[in-house]
């Protein structure tokens, strides 16, 4: 399951997240009974937690460390694994030109999808916010690609991108333009993936922006209008600053998920032509499950984790300059 951190708006409201809550019924009871109640509550607590935490530890939390342990091995799943220390990382980061290419590809994808996605979804949310009629309908329409599986989306776009009969080139032909060799040219394949991904994720960002826009008190706009602020000034000095936490949230989420791109590119291009749309997760998949280089694949996965972690940490660090919570 794709899992992401909560929105900042939510986080603000639930700032007491880890503060202990009172045990149910533990107030106004004599001290001795309270102690036995406390033990009782603790036992119940562990019992309630047990079914979830076993699975959580085995399949979510311990594997993070296990991946690191595996990344220090040379292991093909047939012979006995041998410990090689940081050799996999050395090879990956210093001696693997393919991985360098893959990092560049993934970076290209991130740069291609994230800013465009943010600007377009903001424009759409603004349009939707200003024209109240049909809001539910439009929101639903833009959401359809979001709920559709990446596999189905890529299947459809494979057909749309077909160089002779795909709808996109047919449209270009109709305008008297030459067709674009979307999937057969290593220069155009990544733009094709980016175009498709932006289309798929637009509605998701739009819904979040819409929630952010609707959280801005109308009284602010009224006060600004009375003071003579025109639409552009209101947008610059009210909408944008008050949307900053939302923009920050969308930025972090989009970056994280963009670095993890797999399904869309795997089905649309299979990483090709050549290696032009090969991405980090595709490399994990190929190394681990095509070539059975388990240690090497684990090192790639860990590098992905490090990148995502660093990008998120960096954004948290610089957000202070441009995101102001009320």
């Amino acid at each position, binding site marked *: *399951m*794709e*899992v*992401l951190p*909560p*929105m900042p708006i939510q986080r603000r409201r*639930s700032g007491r*997240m*880890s503060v*202990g*809550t*009172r*045990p149910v*019924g533990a107030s106004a009871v004599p001290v001795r009974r309270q102690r036995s109640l406390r033990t009782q*509550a*603790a036992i*119940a*607590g562990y019992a*309630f*937690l047990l*079914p*979830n935490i076993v*699975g*959580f530890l085995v*399949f*979510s939390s311990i*594997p*993070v460390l*296990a*991946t690191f342990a*595996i990344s220090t091995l040379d292991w093909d799943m047939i012979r006995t694994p041998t410990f090689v220390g940081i050799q996999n990382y050395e090879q990956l980061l210093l001696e693997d030109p393919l991985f360098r290419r893959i990092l560049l590809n993934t970076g290209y994808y991130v740069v291609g999808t994230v800013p465009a996605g943010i600007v377009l979804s903001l424009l*759409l949310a603004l*349009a939707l916010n*200003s*024209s109240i009629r049909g809001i539910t309908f439009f929101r*639903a329409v*833009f*959401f*359809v690609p*979001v709920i*559709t*599986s*990446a*596999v189905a989306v890529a299947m*459809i776009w*494979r*057909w*749309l991108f077909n160089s002779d*009969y795909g*709808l996109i080139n*047919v449209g270009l032909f109709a305008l008297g333009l030459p067709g674009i060799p979307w999937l057969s040219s290593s220069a155009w394949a990544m733009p094709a993936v980016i175009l498709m991904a932006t*289309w798929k*994720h*637009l509605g998701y960002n739009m819904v979040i922006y819409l929630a952010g826009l609707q959280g801005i008190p109308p009284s602010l706009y009224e006060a600004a209008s009375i003071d003579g602020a025109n639409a552009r000034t209101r947008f610059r000095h009210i909408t944008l600053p008050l949307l900053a936490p939302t923009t920050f949230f969308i930025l972090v989420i989009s970056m994280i*998920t963009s670095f993890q791109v797999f399904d869309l590119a*795997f089905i649309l291009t299979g990483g090709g032509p050549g290696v032009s749309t090969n991405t980090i*997760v595709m490399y994990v998949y190929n190394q*681990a499950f095509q070539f059975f280089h*388990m240690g090497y694949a684990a090192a790639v996965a860990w590098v*992905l984790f490090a990148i995502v972690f660093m990008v998120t940490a960096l954004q948290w660090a610089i957000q202070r300059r441009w995101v102001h919570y009320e």
Partner: protein
Amino acid sequence: MSARRALAYLGLVIGSIAMLLPFVWMVSTSLKPDSEVFAYPPIWLPSPPMWENYPKVLELLPFRRYLINTTFVATTVTILEVVTSSLAAYAFARLPFPGRDRLFLLYLGTLMVPGQVTIIPNFLVMSWFGWTNTYLALIIPAAFTAFGTFLLRQFFLSIPVELEQAARIDGCGYFGIYRHIVMPLSGPGIATLAIFAFMTQWNAFLWPLIVTNSDNYRTLTVGLSYFRGEFATQFNYLMAGTVMNVVPILLVFVCLQRYFVRGIALTGITGR
């Protein structure tokens, strides 16, 4: 003002067409005979529509089996996830036990880890258990999420403690409170989690791709990816297969739209 509104509508209408046209094209292509698939200019309304394409696709690959697998896996994971997450969420929300806050931090921390980081050890565990190519591999690792626990805990915290205290005084045990007070009052939260769990499983690809290698256990998305490889240019068949993956989740969405939107606005979960 009205010019601006007109511009907004224009943008929304163009955007909506861009969103829906690919799906219309998918359905249209799926109903075409081979001869009309590669027609120029393109034909939007195949006449007569080739409904036979669908039964034909069911023969080419065992899509019926894939559909059953996907439905079974998605339903089972959803039930398991709702049950185990709600139990854990109740513990985190209401039952003070030693180490609770630290464990909750561990849950939160794991939320930030990309899922692909854990697939290698999880695959190895599946091999050791002998679970690869079984429903167990598709279901069990997906059923215990930090996310579900986190989401429901936030919902449970908003239920007034007084209700539970009253039930305690009336002699209700913790499980009774969970069963008869907390769960019934958390309908929207449970619905949101259930829908997202179902959608995530319905659309899942990488994990099912890794742990299945026979048609008996392949899910629809994995089946589609093989279909793509075998019938690379039979776009009418490919689109008919794709329709089978898109339409069911679309129907769920149309019926339960408000939970989708609420879930996203509340937590930032995604089916990406």
